[in-house]
């Protein structure tokens, strides 16, 4: 004899979970839409000389702040549920946002939000403080930015910088590829410290060496032709 109530109870649970997912999904959609517009503006950096970058960065900052509000909305809802149960719904968009923040900061935006220790990139603490969300929570079950998400965002930023190195040369800027080269190599060295398992982080971080190579090729071409600016950074 099969008690049909068992299935009725299951259906109730499924419906409850669907409601939660729908609610989160709606917020994540908004976050994604704004994220695309952030990235669209940010990609203007590829065709804007460094000294005219300010208005672009201001626009990007505006978009990022709008996204920050969506993150706050997301946090309010997500905090009511087990974090890792639903984390998959927003992790992608949060990574994209952090990547935009990192890139914007590297280009000289968001200066007031950087920590005192670094000038070129934002640490996970800086990002957490800026977005007003906790990071790397290990005990408390609440919304936060995970280390994996942060690292994946850094990888995305590195890929974007590799592209920027090429485009900077096209714009006649021979200094920036050097700066990018230094930074990218440091990040690469950092990733080599990690013992990565066969997961998404491993797959994505394997790509960093191609970014490094891309930038090094640019630096090489410039050095070969004596185009490295005097007093420029080491390559």
């Amino acid at each position, binding site marked *: 004899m099969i008690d049909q109530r*068992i299935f009725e109870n299951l259906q109730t649970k*499924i419906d409850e979970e*669907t409601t939660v997912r729908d609610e989160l999904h709606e917020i994540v959609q908004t976050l994604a839409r704004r994220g695309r517009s952030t990235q669209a503006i940010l990609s203007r950096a590829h065709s804007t000389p460094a000294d005219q970058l300010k208005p672009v960065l201001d626009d990007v900052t505006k978009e990022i702040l709008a996204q920050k509000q969506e993150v706050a909305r997301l946090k309010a809802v997500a905090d009511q549920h087990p974090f890792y149960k639903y984390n998959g719904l927003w992790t992608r968009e949060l990574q994209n946002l952090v990547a935009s923040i990192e890139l914007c900061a590297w280009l000289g935006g968001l200066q007031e939000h950087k920590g005192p220790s*670094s000038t070129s990139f934002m640490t996970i603490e800086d990002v957490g403080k800026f977005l007003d969300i906790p990071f*790397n929570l290990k005990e*408390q*079950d609440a919304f936060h930015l995970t280390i994996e998400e942060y690292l994946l965002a850094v990888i995305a930023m590195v890929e974007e910088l590799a592209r920027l190195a090429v485009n900077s040369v096209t714009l006649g800027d021979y200094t920036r590829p050097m700066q990018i080269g230094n930074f990218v190599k440091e990040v690469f060295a*950092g990733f080599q410290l990690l013992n990565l398992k066969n997961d998404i982080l491993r797959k994505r971080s394997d790509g960093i060496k191609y970014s490094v190579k891309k930038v090094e090729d640019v630096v090489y071409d410039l050095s070969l032709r004596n185009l490295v600016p005097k*007093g420029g950074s080491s390559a």
Partner: protein
Amino acid sequence: MGTKRSWEGQPLELNPQDTIMAEVETESAPSILSIFESFRDELDEHHDRRERIIKKSRDITALSKKIIFALQRVRTTNQPLPPKIAQENQTRFDQIHALFEGVVPEQLGINGWRYQRQISAGIQEFIEAVSFDHYLRTQTLITHAECSARVPPGILVSEEDYLMGLYDLTGEMMRFAVLSLSSGNATATNATENTASDSEKSTVASSQGGIVVDLRAIRAGFEALTVPQRHYMFRDMGKKQDVMQNSVEKVERAAYGIVVRGSERPSGWTPDLSGAVEVPSY
């Protein structure tokens, strides 16, 4: 950490025109590495815990499979299990309990859902074993609450695991029914046979309570569930649904075979169960 050098090999000097980059090099170079060192520790801890849980999950799966094999040697339903099998399985259940106890400290608080996927396979197999055990003893379906009560408190039994475990249960019930039919001398067979022949005559014979009836009821229950596709909530559900429907049909066909050819059946004849009896198990 070595000295930063220019590409000509000269030790790097700070250039006043380049203060921003100079700062980057003096301050962020060590800090990037130290940041990543702390990340490494965190990630190592995560991977180690993850692997410990996977290992335990595999052990639980293996023990659960053994329990199921032992239960397939039972020939009756709704009766206490033969003492030998019951005793054998009790040791295994105890071992599984100990394994779950070992997972509890790994899954405290936020980590419950973080490593849910790692322990999930073990839990599903365990639910398959527990629900099969429960069904053979009582001929009823174990509830989600009863399943949760069979594992230590800190272990999370999600609805998904419960549901997937029940899908696998239908495969075991199918195997059990077919085995009983072919051995042809057990009460389970009779129950099945009666139900089948009754439904021939009167179309409704649910009170008979045979496996066929139960399987049909479970199938109907599963099919009535509405799970929205858009969230990929239960990833394996489609596949499991197919397997479950096949299992039910196999038992229905076997019951049909008994009814149609039962009267002509010489003693020792076993019904022709065309098609393999293997159940794909996950």
